[in-house]
């Protein structure tokens, strides 16, 4: 009980705590008025983190250390200065995860443009992982939705902290098995219908909208790709496309059950220029058999026409595997306490939602 879900929005960070079955209490709101693009609670320490994008004033990272409610600005990932002055600058913190249990203080951040940053001091300072930034293939990365490519999914292997898998829009899937010292492109089998046919299976041209790993079985990963739904059982090296999903295989978000790798959830939409629910009916889809079949979950979701879009970080599952939450660009927030069988709307009046994350 007392699970908390953190909601990063265009106008602040909102938080809801479960006080009893079916009972959710809104608690503190912080950064009111400021865009919050990423949130994280470090389960190793209880420290909380929030990535902000102040627009005019740039990207910032704040932390509330365990046991306190005071948020303070800490170090922000930044690209090294280059001599000719034409170098990159961080435009968005798009992913933030902890290192392994054997790496106290380690955090990983993904940014737009596509930088991977590591901190070993609980976010007080950061360094660019140059080995990935210098990969020649990076020249082939391109923006998908945003003007520049970005790293939005970082999966640290829970049993081997040196194995890290990334998903990049658009740059495909990457893996390091030595803590980030070297990187290799993986992602065989991902298919990009938006590319010329001869490049459809080019691993670097892929647009995985979101990649998640099963915590108990981390070689099992799911991707909600621009082009559909994909599943890997070998750590992201090879992927199987799942095409027979109603009402749509398109979407941004995916969640996988923490102990059941065959169970995953998606929030489908109409592809490309529309990006609204199919037939204006907001639904969640769930598979329990690795993508062979899907259920369409609707109980508690709007019966009237709905135009909510769920961004890639705005669907999450708690570490117990029963609680799910998702939030939309129109500021609606739903939770389920039974793996999606029933949904409860916690708010219809939040700002546009960027990220939804449970405490782990």
């Amino acid at each position, binding site marked *: 009980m007392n699970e908390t879900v953190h909601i990063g929005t265009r106008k602040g960070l909102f938080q809801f705590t479960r006080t009893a079955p079916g009972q959710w209490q809104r608690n503190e709101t912080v950064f009111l008025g400021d865009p919050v693009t990423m949130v994280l609670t470090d389960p190793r320490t209880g420290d909380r983190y929030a990535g902000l994008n*102040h627009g*005019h004033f740039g990207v910032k990272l704040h932390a509330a250390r365990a046991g306190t409610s005071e948020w303070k600005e800490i170090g922000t990932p930044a690209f090294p200065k280059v001599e000719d*002055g034409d170098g*990159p600058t961080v435009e968005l913190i798009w992913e933030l995860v902890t290192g392994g249990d054997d790496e106290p203080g380690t955090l990983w951040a993904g940014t737009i443009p596509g930088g991977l940053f590591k901190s070993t001091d609980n976010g007080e300072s950061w360094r660019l992982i140059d080995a990935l930034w210098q990969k020649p293939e990076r020249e082939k990365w391109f923006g998908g939705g945003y003007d520049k490519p970005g790293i939005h999914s970082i999966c640290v292997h829970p049993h081997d902290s040196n194995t890290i898998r990334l998903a990049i829009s658009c740059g495909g899937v990457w893996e390091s098995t030595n803590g980030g010292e070297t990187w290799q492109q993986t992602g065989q089998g991902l298919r990009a219908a938006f590319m010329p046919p001869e490049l459809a299976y080019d691993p670097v041209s892929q647009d995985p909208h979101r990649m998640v790993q099963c915590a108990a079985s981390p070689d099992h990963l799911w991707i909600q790709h621009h082009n559909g739904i994909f599943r890997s059982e070998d750590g992201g090296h090879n992927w199987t496309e799942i095409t027979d999903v109603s009402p749509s295989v398109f979407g941004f978000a995916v969640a996988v059950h923490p102990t059941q790798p065959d169970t995953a959830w998606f929030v489908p939409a109409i592809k490309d220029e529309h990006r609204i629910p199919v037939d204006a009916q907001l639904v969640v889809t769930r598979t329990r058999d690795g993508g062979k079949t899907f259920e369409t979950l609707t109980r508690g979701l709007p019966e009237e026409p709905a135009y909510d879009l769920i961004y890639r970080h705005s669907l999450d599952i708690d570490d117990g595997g029963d609680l799910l939450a998702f939030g939309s660009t129109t500021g609606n927030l739903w939770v389920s306490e039974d793996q999606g069988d029933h949904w409860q709307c916690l708010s219809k009046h939040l700002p546009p939602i960027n990220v939804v994350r449970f405490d782990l």
Partner: protein
Amino acid sequence: MITVTFTPNLQRHVLSPPRELQADTVANALHQIFAENPALAGYILDDQHRLRKNIAVFIDGTLIQDRNTLSDSLQPSSDVQVLQALSGG
């Protein structure tokens, strides 16, 4: 003395009081201030130490020309204003 003032919208994020100093360029003036108040620098300059794209600096009412190295010259009594360019939202 040169006077440097910052948009009041910065105040809720970071300490940014007006400052009087002596300097020959915008870069020189701002670097003096950032040396005393390092947290302010990241709100005004990007990772490459360029002026952030939605920040505007005026010298005596004239927009500066060099956003990359801030080499625009100052007069001994210049009034430097660091403002935010308007945008939606």
